[in-house]
């Protein structure tokens, strides 16, 4: 089972696979051992990786040179190779089996149940894992209303961010009048959050789950056409989706008269051109229609008037991928997982200052601490945890004191953040929270479509104030302006992008106000990130007088004789930090 998700592929997993196949043939094992390329395994931090079944031995950080040894020792002689196994940080002994690794132990897989187990490009493997059974169950014996009711009973909520009850949305679209013109179901795969790759991995590892969910949804809603809006920056996901659709058509699972039931439904793929705002559903639909990708006011809601004015039910990739399992195992089973108001599991992409970067699926209600420490393996290099940013660039930063916060829709909103589509960026003590707010705001400012006043002008002004603060020119008055501006933008913006863009500012003001005050009153950045607030000096005892910094300094602010301690002329230093970067003797002090 060789992982072929985007992260592993970019680390040469296709070449490793090729080497493996060649080596196996050389040893004459081709009839004993099958090499399977799977979708994303999730543990991207240690890729490229593979799992040897049936024992479930997990090998990581492979190179093509490791393959001959691995084949000879493990496959031929039955001695698993310890050197290539995963060793948790701070421990001596490697953990041979995948399911014993902390990263995998605490996860609960529903959406990603097939990850690492099937070849996403082969429909038969999906069917062998009970794929399309739910569709068969629905088409052969369930009324559309029953299907909608099943989804309502399951308590499934939208996984794209807002958490709207999925069953209710289906019901609204089902009841909307279409004047005989037909209805649409739509899949939002325009995942644009920096550092988020949940939807990409779901499609890459199990595209049929998404398709099956959409077909079931279309049957329940009464739609005859589907649209998938996917980023063109996801070539692998796009290709696997296309292959999956072709195979599904071939098997009579998509197209006319599906499974002989008389139900017709087909799906079109629209590729997005990289605008973040097109992940907003009304902008997404405008983009599918060929119009400018800009949100429009609601009402009318897409369930009444969506793509080309027809009732449209739009759900996120992960929401659709939940559907087959819910139908197959029942709403009762699903609603037992999770919390009172948030049912099931959620996929998160765990990134930032964390040991085990990767994709995790956890039951709702798990605490942030469990995700970050038990699954994520904590913060690398012995640094202290500072905050976690959930929900993408428009989410909020949750501080260390709140690590025991359960992860569900309501708790995250109360903390000023949001579930979002499931990005989770871990920040350590070296992060400046003002700079983080500035960074995320710069992103949303840049991606604002510019239609409504608060988002177009408000984000620009907030960014302006944050730039003032991080360059040491902020005043306490600016802080008040920033806060009231952020509140009004959140209250008055037209779409979700603008409404949530101030979240990083508001949460950092709420939990890390002292850092803002440090920047303004004491002109100090405790994490030394805001370079304009730093003072660079040379520690005379450490300086060997190698002249390297003096040569690199673009302002020629550093002087000193060869083999004598140098000095920095503060009056002309522009605080670019180059001297710190080039010094090999740790002789530059930042204050």
């Amino acid at each position, binding site marked *: 089972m060789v992982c072929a998700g985007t992260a592993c592929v970019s680390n040469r997993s296709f070449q490793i696979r090729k080497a493996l196949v060649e080596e196996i043939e050389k040893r004459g094992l081709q009839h004993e051992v099958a090499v399977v390329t799977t979708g994303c395994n999730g543990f991207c931090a240690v890729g490229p990786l593979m799992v040897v079944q049936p024992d479930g031995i997990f090998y990581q950080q492979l190179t093509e040179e490791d393959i001959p040894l691995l084949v000879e020792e493990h496959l031929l002689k039955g001695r698993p190779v310890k050197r290539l196994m995963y060793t948790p940080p701070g421990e001596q002994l490697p953990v041979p089996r995948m399911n014993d690794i902390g990263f995998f132990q605490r996860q609960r897989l529903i959406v990603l149940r097939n990850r690492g187990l099937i070849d996403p490009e082969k429909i038969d493997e999906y069917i062998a894992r009970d794929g399309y059974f739910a569709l068969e169950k629905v088409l052969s014996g369930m009324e559309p209303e029953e299907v909608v009711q099943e989804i309502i009973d399951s308590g499934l909520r939208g996984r794209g961010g807002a958490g709207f009850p999925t069953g209710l949305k289906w019901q609204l679209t089902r009841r909307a009048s279409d004047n005989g013109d037909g209805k649409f179901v739509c899949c939002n795969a325009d995942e644009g959050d920096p550092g988020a790759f949940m939807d990409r991995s779901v499609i890459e590892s199990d595209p049929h789950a998404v398709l099956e969910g959409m077909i079931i949804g279309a049957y329940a809603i009464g739609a005859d056409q589907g649209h998938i809006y996917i980023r063109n920056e996801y070539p692998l996901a796009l290709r696997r989706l296309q292959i999956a659709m072709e195979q599904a058509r071939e098997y009579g699972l998509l197209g006319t008269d599906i499974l002989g039931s008389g139900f017709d439904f087909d799906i079109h793929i629209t590729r997005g051109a990289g605008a973040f705002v097109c992940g907003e559903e009304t902008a997404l639909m405008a983009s599918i229609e060929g119009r*400018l990708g800009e949100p429009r*006011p609601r009402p009318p809601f897409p369930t009444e008037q969506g793509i080309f004015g027809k009732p449209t039910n739009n759900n996120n990739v992960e929401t659709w991928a939940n559907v087959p399992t819910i139908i197959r195992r029942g709403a009762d089973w699903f609603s037992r997982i999770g919390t009172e108001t948030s049912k099931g599991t959620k996929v998160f992409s765990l990134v930032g200052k964390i040991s085990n970067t990767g994709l995790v699926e956890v039951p709702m209600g798990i605490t942030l601490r469990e995700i970050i420490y038990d699954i994520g393996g904590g913060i690398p290099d012995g640094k202290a945890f500072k905050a976690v940013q959930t929900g993408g660039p428009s989410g909020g930063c949750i501080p260390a004191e709140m690590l025991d916060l359960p992860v569900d829709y309501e708790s995250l909103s109360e903390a000023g953040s949001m579930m979002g589509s499931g990005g989770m960026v871990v920040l350590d003590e070296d992060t400046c929270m003002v700079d983080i707010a500035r960074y995320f705001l710069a992103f949303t400012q840049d991606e604002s479509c*510019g239609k*409504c*006043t608060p988002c*177009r*002008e408000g*984000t*620009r002004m907030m960014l302006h104030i944050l730039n003032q603060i991080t360059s040491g020119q902020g005043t306490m008055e600016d802080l008040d302006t920033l806060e009231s501006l952020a509140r009004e933008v959140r209250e008055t913006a037209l779409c979700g992008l603008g409404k949530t863009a101030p979240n990083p500012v508001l949460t950092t003001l709420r939990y890390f106000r002292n850092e803002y005050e440090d920047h303004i009153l004491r002109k100090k950045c405790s994490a030394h990130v805001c370079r304009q607030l730093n003072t660079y000096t040379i520690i005379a005892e450490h300086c060997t007088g190698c002249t390297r910094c003096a040569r690199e300094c673009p302002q020629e602010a550093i002087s000193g004789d060869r083999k004598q301690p140098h000095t920095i002329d503060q009056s002309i230093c522009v605080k670019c930090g180059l001297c710190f970067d080039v010094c090999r003797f740790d002789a530059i002090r930042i204050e």
Partner: protein
Amino acid sequence: MLSLTIDGRRVRAREGETILAAAQAAGIDIPALCHHPALEPYAACRLCMVEILEKGGSRLATSCNTPVASGLTVRTRSPRALAARRMNLELLLSRAPKAAVLQALAARYHISGTRFPAESPDEDCILCGLCVRICEQVVGASAICFAGRGSERHLTTPFEIFSDACIACGACTYVCPTDSVQMESETAEHFREQTGPFRQCRYSLMGIIPYALCANSFRCATCEVDQRFRDSMETHPIFVARECRLEPVSTYDRFLQKIRKEST
């Protein structure tokens, strides 16, 4: 007819009407710069925000696109609605400091200046999109558009080149709340260059009069035809055109019709 409460007054309204229309009919003034009754609601300027009281709380909504409902309680000048309106007015002022309509509104809402620096001090376009939308939805020409994203957004012609879709009807200059859209002499020049059957009168292009050629070298201000229509109409001729000819279609709709026809 149904009834609702706006600023403490009982107001009667038709089903499907917006809060803004109902308020205006009752003589309650709500500023709405991107709104025009002949156009689809756009809800972009965010000045028409009102507070709607609901069970256990209240929410802000743009009155230009929110439909009335029986028994609704709306406050147009509550502290929350006013704070939202003032902030957006201040933000718009930083975008277009020269726009007279904004200055008048600012005086009415006691805003002495904006805390936010202006990017271009001579700007008077507030990006309300009325000109773009009237050209698309009423005229059916789509001769002007927005380009650029976010704060780069600006008004221009498609692909920033001379737009030959323009029929010089002047609807854009008519709806512009800040007089920022002006007809360039270039447009009239373009028409003057037309020869023979293409020298069509703009009233004929608008669909008000049957096919007619221009006999006045496109000096509409001194034209008898133009004068006669101006005297008899109380609004811009394009709105009259809308009533007397077929429903105008945008070029995009025409494009759609074309591909549908080809595919069948």
